[in-house]
């Protein structure tokens, strides 16, 4: 009975199958009507009869028909199909219709008997794929393909007519079995579906089985929000990367961005200890994430200068489970960048060109105009010498002169003088060479010139890359070679700050001739900073970077794959800074009056550096699928050597401005000697990572990496990193499987430890140096240059992460993470008892906690085919707390308090206190300005009031880290026309308004000041003023009266809530109809605008040395 039902089912299925197979021709079979009267004839006779009456032709093998018994058929005006049905019913044959052919096939056995299916699995280049899991859906049976891609699987019963193929990096595939025994199956790479794979840079992981927290950003997403560089685009995409505002460098195209992932966990490094500032990007900066480019460690500079069009995707590894692969370097997170993969099926040439426009954004400046400035000076007593008549007369004359000029309309707007609208261009040609079976390649060439908003400041990158791959049998070779030539020029106009401080009653140009003036005010010998730009001032740097990465991938056996990678990169860099003799730096009276100094005018600084990295790694992975069990194990070993050296020479005395070459110098700068730094670091590490999943529901990840670095002392050379992650794919559970709501519903949890080693030199061991300018009786002496700390440990960060991924079919994608991390063994300069012979030592101290959450959501509001409307948004929050501090940190704080006590100090000091955030702003609580006397009223710790600033009263007045930040935006496309816009926001943090305090209180009255000085400063008793009166003080034993500075006070701590309109993009994808006529495959035109608007609750001057800019760009991309 049971058998019968099965039987019936099967037949029904067959019929359906046949019907669907015959598809569009079923009509013909139905229409052809036939009349037959055949009795006891071979079946071939029947075929001939049909061929006579219809256009159909039979195809069969003799073997199929020779053993059949004769048939008898008598029909009158029946459809062909019904006739065929009748004939074949009793036989073991069946038929298929293809066009006008009727193909005779063997009818499938109706028995419950096993059959063996064999086949080969290949990729689309016909390369056999090994290790593919071949499964029978609905059973626990499965096999994997061998190294030649072959498989053989036993199908237990007829009931199973499908087999599935699964492999990481490939799209899942299922095929329906027919009565063939051998199948050639082609699997497609799944890389096009970015969300399916997590690229960790070492091994690719299937997203569904991954327990880590990682976000993947496709090139499409990157291009949607900007076309400047990868980092600029990331700014508008993922809030977990926090770009630290560079108020000093603004939008200087030559400034490298600083960023951090999930909070601050390192103390700021002390660059001053070396006493050498180098131009060029050498050492790493603490708190910066690790950059991995195509599997190799890279630098932020390289990422910034790389052509965005080459990027395939960016993956940000955030939690331990994701980043533990990078062990001792991963504490600050890892950003993995992968360049475009070779598609290899077409030959294509793509040209992308763009024009970029940068416009200065000066909205944050609020400077006094000429009239106001003169009035401020008068009030401040610049022109008042009550005790000295002679001086008073001079001052009166000066005042009247200035007043007269102002009356005549002199009001120079200095801010605009060094600025321009920067127009840059970018050209990129990308050639995909790939229709050969085994050799494929991409060649790419880019020219990119970014013109900054300061006149003549630019950054120019010319880069080329070749990406080749070659397959020999089952060995894949791949080589990516990149060369970048960079040239950057800082504006010869000097720093923007030089113009901000210029008094508006000074002149830049001669009013009659219009020529540039040497002196902005000849009577006071005030140099005109613009003049410096006309005399050959030079400040440039350049580098040439060459990288070659080589990959060999092979399959050692059915389950084992090996990848060997070797990379080499070399960089040569140089910088030139030439200040001609006429430069305003040498215009002080001492240079002019002293013959000796006069000869020393003009200076040249020459920097030279080189760095090189060689690294290699070998990873062997084992993948196996057994029934519902999936196991993946990877072991790897890494070795690398990186070194850099940089040298600085300074020369002085240049006879004329044209001699912009160091060889024209009169001598080395007095008291200077060649300076340099070098570093050599070797590292070796071993990695083991394993992944197990049961039925794709329950996931387990474990990673262990142990690294040793030559940077660290023998006692603590080896640093382990590990992680364990668990995941649960709830959407795979039976109770949700049938519901069509969730495409994905995954819970993740992970814990692990990673390290940080962004430190320059070896502090763990003692190093010696020579007294180079000293000998003792003709003998050389050596001295210990640092206090060794053999117990110095690697910084370790322990991360806990809890996350959920939700994807509701076609509507919503949501990713939320909560994390809690503890960084211990922070490396910092710690003061030690001077009786040790040194004042500081690099030591581990304390514990810092960072915790927070990140939520990213993307809602697809509307979708019709290619047309869509998406909104997206994110929110991220991080809370930083110092949990423990060692005793020695207290001495550090004491020193900081001492600095705060200095009456000439104008900045908040850094203090680290248990329970407080690292970015705390330490200030003395202020009640404002006493209207009676103009002094500031402070609150002491005990609550009493005082006029005296005491560093012991320092309290936390704010936290520079915003409570929340994130972004939101919209993207839409309709018939090829797309629009996208993104806003960034941050809220809940504070900022010490340094520029305000410096521009209104710590002012140098000889230069321009903020307008608020005029109205806000205390002048007369009884006045309610925002800003205090100024005082002077003397250092002990110092006859000089110095201006007392406003020290860190709560008056200048302001809430910072900010909304930035980060990007707006419009693009148009030209329709195929038009393009076909032009024999163009694809054409896209885009217009970008970036950093369009900033709305902030705090009014502070941004861009002190280089202004911020708004940028716009239009870009055209054509593929032939």
């Amino acid at each position, binding site marked *: 009975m049971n058998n019968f039902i099965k039987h019936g089912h099967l037949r029904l299925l067959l019929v359906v199958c046949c019907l669907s197979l015959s598809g569009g021709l079923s009509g013909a079979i139905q229409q052809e009507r036939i009349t037959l009267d055949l009795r006891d004839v071979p079946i071939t006779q029947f075929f001939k009869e049909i061929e006579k009456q219809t256009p159909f032709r039979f195809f069969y093998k003799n073997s199929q028909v020779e053993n059949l018994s004769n048939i008898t058929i008598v029909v009158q005006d029946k459809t062909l199909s019904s006739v065929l049905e009748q004939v074949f019913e009793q036989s073991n044959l069946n038929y298929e219709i293809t066009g006008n052919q009727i193909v005779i096939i063997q009818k499938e056995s109706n028995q419950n008997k096993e059959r063996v299916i064999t086949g080969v699995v290949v990729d689309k280049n016909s390369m056999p794929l090994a290790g593919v899991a071949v499964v029978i859906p609905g059973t626990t049976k499965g096999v994997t393909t061998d190294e030649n891609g072959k498989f053989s699987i036993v199908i237990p019963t007829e009931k199973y007519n499908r087999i599935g193929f699964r492999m990481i990096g490939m799209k899942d595939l299922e095929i329906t079995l027919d009565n063939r025994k051998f199948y050639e199956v082609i699997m497609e790479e799944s890389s096009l579906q970015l969300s399916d794979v997590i690229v960790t840079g070492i091994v690719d992981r299937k997203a569904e089985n991954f327990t880590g927290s990682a976000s993947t950003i496709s090139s499409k997403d990157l291009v949607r929000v900007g076309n400047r560089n990868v980092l600029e685009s990331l700014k508008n995409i993922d809030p977990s990367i926090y770009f630290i505002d560079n108020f000093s460098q603004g939008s200087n195209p030559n400034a490298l961005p600083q960023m951090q992932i999930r909070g601050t966990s390192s103390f700021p490094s002390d660059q001053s200890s070396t006493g050498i500032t180098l131009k060029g990007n050498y050492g790493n900066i603490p708190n910066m994430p690790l950059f991995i480019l195509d599997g190799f460690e890279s630098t932020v500079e390289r990422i910034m200068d790389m052509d965005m069009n080459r990027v395939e995707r960016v993956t940000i590894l955030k939690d331990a489970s994701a980043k533990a692969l990078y062990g001792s370097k991963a504490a600050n997170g890892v950003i993995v960048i992968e360049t475009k993969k070779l598609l290899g099926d077409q030959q294509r040439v793509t040209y992308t060109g763009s024009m970029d426009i940068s416009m200065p954004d000066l909205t944050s400046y609020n400077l006094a105009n000429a009239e106001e400035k003169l009035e401020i000076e008068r009030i401040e007593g610049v022109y008042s010498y009550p005790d000295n008549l002679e001086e008073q007369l001079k001052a009166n004359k000066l005042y009247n002169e200035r007043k007269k000029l102002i009356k005549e309309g002199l009001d120079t707007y200095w801010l605009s003088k060094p600025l321009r609208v920067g127009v840059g261009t970018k050209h990129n040609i990308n050639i995909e060479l790939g229709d050969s079976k085994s050799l494929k390649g991409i060649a790419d060439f880019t020219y990119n010139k970014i013109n900054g908003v300061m006149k003549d400041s630019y950054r120019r990158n010319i880069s080329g890359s070749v990406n080749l791959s070659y397959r020999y049998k089952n060995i894949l070779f791949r080589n990516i070679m990149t060369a970048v030539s960079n040239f950057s020029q800082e504006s010869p106009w000097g720093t923007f700050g030089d113009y901000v401080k210029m008094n508006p009653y000074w002149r830049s140009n001669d009013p009659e001739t219009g020529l540039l003036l040497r002196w902005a005010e000849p009577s006071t010998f005030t140099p005109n900073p613009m003049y410096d730009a006309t005399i050959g001032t030079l400040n440039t740097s350049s580098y040439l970077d060459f990288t070659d990465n080589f990959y060999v991938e092979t399959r050692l056996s059915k389950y084992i794959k090996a990848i060997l990678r070797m990379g080499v990169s070399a960089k040569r860099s140089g910088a030139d800074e030439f200040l001609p003799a006429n430069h305003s730096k040498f215009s002080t009276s001492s240079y002019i009056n002293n013959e000796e100094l006069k000869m020393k005018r003009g200076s040249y600084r020459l920097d030279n550096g080189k760095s090189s990295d060689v690294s290699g790694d070998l990873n062997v992975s084992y993948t196996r699928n057994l029934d519902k069990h999936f196991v993946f194990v990877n072991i790897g070993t890494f070795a690398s050597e990186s070194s850099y050296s940089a040298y600085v020479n300074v020369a002085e005395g240049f006879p004329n401005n044209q001699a912009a070459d160091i060889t024209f110098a009169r001598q080395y700068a007095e008291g200077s000697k060649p300076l340099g730094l070098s570093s050599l670091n070797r590292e070796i590490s071993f990695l083991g990572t394993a992944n197990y999943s049961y039925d794709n529901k329950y996931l387990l990840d474990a990673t262990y990496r142990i690294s040793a670095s030559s940077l660290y002392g023998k006692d603590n050379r080896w640093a382990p990193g590990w992680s364990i992650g668990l995941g649960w794919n709830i959407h795979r559970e039976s109770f949700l499987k049938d519901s069509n709501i969730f495409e994905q519903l995954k819970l993740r949890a992970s814990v692990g430890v990673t390290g940080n080693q962004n430190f320059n030199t070896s502090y763990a061991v003692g190093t010696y140096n020579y007294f180079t300018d000293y000998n003792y009786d003709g003998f050389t002496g050596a001295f210990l240059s640092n206090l*060794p700390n053999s117990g110095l440990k690697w910084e370790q960060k322990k991360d806990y992460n809890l996350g959920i991924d939700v994807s509701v079919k076609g509507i919503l994608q949501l990713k939320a993470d909560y994390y809690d991390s503890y960084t211990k063994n922070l490396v910092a300069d710690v003061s030690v008892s001077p009786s040790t012979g040194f004042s500081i030592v690099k030591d581990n101290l304390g514990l810092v906690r960072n915790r927070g959450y990140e939520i990213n959501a993307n809602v697809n509001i509307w979708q019709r085919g290619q047309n869509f409307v998406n909104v997206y948004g994110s929110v991220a929050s991080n809370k930083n707390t110092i949990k423990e501090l060692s005793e020695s940190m207290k001495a550090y704080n004491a020193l900081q308090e001492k600095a705060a006590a200095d009456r000439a100090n104008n900045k908040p000091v850094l203090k680290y206190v248990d329970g407080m955030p690292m970015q705390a702003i330490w200030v003395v609580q202020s009640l404002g300005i006493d209207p009676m006397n103009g002094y500031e009223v402070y609150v002491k710790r005990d609550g009493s009031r005082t006029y005296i600033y005491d560093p012991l009263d320092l309290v936390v007045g704010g936290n520079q880290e915003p409570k929340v930040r994130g972004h939101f935006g919209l993207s839409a496309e309709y018939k090829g026309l797309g629009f996208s816009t993104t806003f960034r926001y941050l809220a809940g943090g504070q900022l010490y308004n340094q520029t305000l305090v410096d521009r209104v209180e710590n002012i140098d009255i000889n230069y321009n000041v903020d307008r608020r000085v005029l109205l806000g400063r205390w002048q007369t008793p009884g006045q309610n003023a925002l800003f205090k009166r100024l005082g002077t003080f003397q250092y002990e034993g110092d006859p000089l009266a110095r201006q007392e500075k406003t020290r860190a006070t709560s008056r200048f701590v302001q809430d910072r809530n900010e909304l930035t309109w980060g990007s707006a993009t419009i693009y148009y994808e030209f329709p195929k109809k038009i393009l076909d006529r032009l024999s163009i495959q694809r054409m896209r035109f885009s217009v970008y605008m970036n950093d369009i608007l900033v709305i902030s609750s705090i009014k502070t001057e941004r861009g002190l040395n280089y202004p911020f800019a708004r940028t716009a760009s239009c870009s055209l991309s054509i593929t032939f």
Partner: protein
Amino acid sequence: MKTFKISISVIVFAILISSCKDWLDVTPPSQIREEDQFNSVEGFQQALIGCYIAMTDEMLYGRALSWSTIELMAGQFEPLQPSTYGNDYNISIYNYKSTTAIKYIDGIWSKGYNVIANVNNALKYIDLNKKMLDNVNYSIIKGELLAIRAFMHFDLMRLYGYGNIVARTDIAAKVAIPYVTVLGKDMTQQLSYAQTINLIIKDLEDAIELLEIDPVTQNQPASFYSEINIDGFYNNRQHRFNYYAVNLLLARVYMWEGSSASISKALQLANLVIANAESRGLVSWATSTSVSEDVIMKSEHLLSLNIQNLISKTADYFKLEIVDASDIKAQYVSSDRLLSIYEVTSVGSTDYRFSKQFIQNSAIVGGKNAYTPLKYFGVASTAVTKNYVPLIRIPEAYYIAAECYVRQSVPDVQSALDLLNFVRQKRGIVAQLEGLSAENVMNEIVKEYKKEFYCEGVMFFLYKRLGIKTIPNYNGEAGDNIYVLPYPDTEIQMGREQ
């Protein structure tokens, strides 16, 4: 094929893993790691020389502790101009809380301990890598290192610790400066004065034992050293701690300790130096003619530091043309005072320490031209003896011995006077001291110290050791308030006890 692949990967693995330990021991070219520094005889020699060079720092014997700051603190010169910035004024008036004085208080301490840190690291490696050194190099270098460590600690203790300790029983219970013997970030515990002095003595005794092999002892024939000394590293022994200098230094330490047991040990050591230092050719007495060329009396130095460009460093301090108001650094002595120190009107008219080691300058004090010390200022620029600052000179052996004789439980006044007269006669004083009481002999010794050691950083410690309550230029009673430099603030904050 398969075995080939596997074997290739095995080889690659093996290459990567094997000898990774050595592979990781690398240093950037601009760095010399301690292990590499102490890998050769030269390395140890450089480290030793480095310690001496560190001692020539301006905060130490290059200026502050020899001819300038500490001499001002002993009131050796006319008071400095007040209310000027950046000179030694505040420290010369013992205003130890002022920032300009703190510069010295912190500076001397940290530079002194920095020398000690360098010594300690070298001492650590000299025993670790003993096999790299022959016996002579090992013994002498280690002996010198120990001596430097003791010397620096001793001077720091004399500055930052209490003086006249033999007379003050309350001192014994107090803790002295930390005696640091290990390089590291951990604070060395402070020990009592007695324990600390014992550590100094222990180091010096060890040094003396090691320095038995010092060429100056002439215990070995000169040929013994010819190979080892091929580059002349063991020439000029008086520029580094030699056997006799260490002996006399130990005598100095015993004098500071001051107990009767110590006095007899000091006498023994001083006599050993008197008996041998000259006869074995280490030193020879200056004469009134030699001193014209050799103002610093280089031939008498048991130990002096070679200081490069010493003349340019002293130029601002010692000069002939002194303009009172603006010469904020000028160190000079009034005529009356100098004449009285050298007893010119009585016995001292022929004392060439007065006539040849001083010169009249343009400054007028009390109606007369004042005097500038010539010791560093006057050395002819070509003279081989320029650029040396003496730390230990042979007369000190005589003065120590003389003091020991009179301070014995049974004073031996005659022996003391013989020694004093011997030195006075060497200096051109004809008149002999005779028939003085022990107390008066002591006074004469102090007077001789004063005449002998101008600009050599000796007087402050002598006054302090003897607990003398009146010192020149200071109106109050001299006590711990001026004799004891406060510890640096950072040390106090970290829990040091003074």
